């Protein structure tokens, strides 16, 4: 029996408006409201809503044979509440079926775990409050933005009640062992580790409509064949992708909806396949092997943090942001704390990337990485002034 878990990550950051040097100290509205609204509404229309409807229908049809996992960032949920409240209802209905597991994540889709574990912890807590309020549940499995992870947070995850974590595969870590299994953290044995199958995930999310791909066009049958060819001893297959892959990155006219529907129908009907929620996987192996993950992993091309922390602009912006934490820790003002989260979204650093292999510009609201850096640093200057002013007056 092969246990297959699909994970769909949905995240949108609060993109910054064009914030001028002259605005520093004067204006404290940092976000491009209309751009963010437009993007939310576009992605909701193209992807989240029709995909939700599709899964709702599949679950109605196949009952507990169809299960999926969702990762919804706090910054996305905040924006949906304002710009697309019906999508929140739709996610609520989906989660209420009991066939959809919501994973835990950082509120802002941040990389705080790299810099400050205390910040990371407060993000987990804020996120927990948010999903408790919206969905009435407490997540049991954790997945950081873009599957980033390293052992330094295993202890924190354990302490706040997470049983497992999903991250990306890395040959160096696995040292020849299969990724299609459950492991545990060598550092915190109570925390189980799940790894994404990169190739099979990307076949759908990145390559599905790529006509120069030698496997194009991809059919549900062909994909099922690939799965059948996996090693017989493999127990687990984790397929993680951006939720936007269904309908936004792969548009409706590529046939992505028909493909997904067919694939799920086939899997639901297949006696040797068990579509699973993440928590169900954790108990599959009685004595999971321990693994150490010292260097941080991510889902990007080279599996490292290079998309967000490679060039000097990224590094300095990142360090400047987190150098504010000792002051932030004394702030209770909700508006400042909200901005503190929103400014942490890893997207801001991604936009500053200069590595041509990544698709920085494709997803960036800026024409050039330098503009992203200038704008972000200006905002950060104002933010720092506000924090200092707050501490003076309280």
């Amino acid at each position, binding site marked *: 029996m092969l246990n297959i878990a699909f994970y769909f990550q949905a995240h949108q950051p609060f993109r910054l408006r064009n914030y*001028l*040097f*002259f605005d*520093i*100290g*004067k204006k404290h509205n940092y976000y491009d409201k209309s751009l963010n609204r437009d993007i939310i509404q576009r992605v909701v229309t193209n992807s989240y809503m029709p995909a939700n409807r599709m899964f709702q229908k599949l679950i109605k049809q196949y009952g507990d044979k169809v299960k999926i996992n969702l990762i919804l960032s706090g910054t996305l949920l905040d924006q949906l509440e304002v710009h697309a409240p019906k999508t929140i209802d739709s996610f609520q209905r989906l989660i209420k079926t009991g066939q959809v597991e919501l994973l835990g994540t950082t509120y802002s889709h941040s990389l705080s775990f790299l810099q400050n574990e205390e910040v990371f912890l407060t993000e987990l807590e804020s996120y927990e409050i948010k999903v408790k309020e919206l969905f009435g549940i407490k997540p049991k499995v954790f997945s950081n933005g873009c599957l980033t992870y390293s052992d330094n947070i295993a202890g924190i995850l354990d302490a706040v009640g997470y049983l497992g974590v999903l991250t990306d595969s890395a040959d160096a870590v696995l040292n020849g062992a299969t990724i299609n299994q459950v492991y545990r953290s060598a550092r915190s044995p109570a925390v189980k580790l799940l790894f994404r199958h990169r190739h099979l995930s990307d076949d759908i999310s990145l390559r599905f409509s790529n006509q120069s791909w030698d496997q194009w066009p991809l059919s549900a049958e062909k994909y099922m064949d690939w799965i059948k060819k996996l090693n017989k001893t493999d127990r687990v297959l984790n397929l993680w992708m951006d939720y936007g892959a269904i309908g936004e990155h792969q548009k409706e006219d590529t046939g992505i909806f028909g493909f997904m529907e067919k694939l799920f129908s086939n899997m639901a009907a297949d006696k040797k396949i068990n579509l699973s929620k993440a928590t169900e996987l954790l108990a599959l192996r009685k004595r999971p092997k321990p693994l150490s993950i010292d260097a941080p992993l991510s889902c990007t091309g080279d599996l490292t943090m290079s998309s967000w922390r490679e*060039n*000097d*602009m990224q*590094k*300095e*912006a990142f*360090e*400047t942001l987190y150098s504010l934490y000792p002051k932030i820790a004394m702030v209770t003002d909700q508006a400042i704390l909200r901005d503190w989260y929103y400014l942490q979204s890893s997207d801001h650093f991604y936009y500053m990337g*200069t590595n041509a292999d990544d698709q920085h510009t494709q997803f960036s609201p800026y024409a*050039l*990485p*330098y*503009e992203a*850096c*200038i704008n972000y*640093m*200006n905002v*950060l*200057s104002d933010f*720092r*002034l506000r924090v200092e002013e707050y501490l003076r007056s309280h």
Partner: protein
Amino acid sequence: MLGWEFPPYISGGLGTACHGLTQALLKKGVEIDFVLPHAQMRKSRKSFRIISASSVSIGKRQVNNTITGLDRLQKDFLQRHNLSGRSLYPFSGGYGDGLYEEVYWYALALEAIARTNDFDVVHAHDWLTYPAGIAAKMISGKPLFVHVHATEYDRSPKINPTVYHLEKRGMQAANMVLAVSELTRKTILGRYGIPANKVLVSYNGVATAKRKIKSPSPRYLKEKIVTFLGRVTYQKGPEYFIEAARKVLNVNQNVRFVIAGNGDLLGKMILKVAGYKMLSKFHFTGFLKGSQVDQMLSMSDVYVMPSVSEPFGIAPLEAMKSGVPVIISRQSGVSEVLPSAIKVNFWDTDALANAINGVLEYASLSDEIKRNGESDLSDLTWSKTAAVVNSAYQTATKPYNIC
């Protein structure tokens, strides 16, 4: 008068200079037709007209391309271009990709203008208009003045041979070459081999009215602000600004640096600042519009122009008018007319850092510089410039003077 910029069609100091000179010459009774590649407004007084080359019906070329210097261009690509039956060429008036092409058609437009208009002198500003100036001179037989606001040696470390050739042709064909500074005059003699008796220095002026900033920006940042305002290109020396900033920050944390402007080195400069971990002390504003320049100056405690090569440099004068103390490089023409400004060699970032820190920290020094600056400025009028130019016009148009 031929020029590529004139307010409001302006992108740099050239437009400001053309405007200042024109206004002052008009006051001296000179009548001027100013030909821009493209202009929407039509000034039409008797004494001053703005002519848009875009609305000039272009006829058959009369002046040989070797004489105008345009033969260099023609070999490259101009054969491919024709007006396909139209008589108007749609100039953009910018500095974009089709620049050579516009230079070519601008010269042809000037042939047409020279055939139908009456004038006594042709005055061409910078190389873009030199071929047109030569063409107008050939058609009309009137004396040509070329006005050198910048040379190719000021623009980049790598000389563009086509631009150099057009500049040299213009200077050779001119009856008189006007240089905006002694520094530029030396370049014209040394690098272009133009006879000394043909090259006259005519410094730029500055509009005399003290700059009143409508609503000075309140100071939110507690640090002092050091401003670099100009294009972020090799010529302007942004690298030396950053190096000096680093040295200042080593001893004085109570300061922020602003690079206000755009240019091909912007990305490189931001990476350099990030490499020194100074991003939280640095701000990059991009290109600033007129009112934003005022706002920027009103926030500045010192203005730095570390240009590697600056034929003149009007920008520091604007800063001085706003009451901001300036530090300029010795490699700028404007340093010749500002005896009391602080001057350093652009490469000497120790001296630059020292000067910046001094002006920031010692109020008496800063006050002294501002006071002396005001008196320097009062000597720099466009009226003086216009007097020099007008007297050269008079000499050149005397009937016995055959150049």
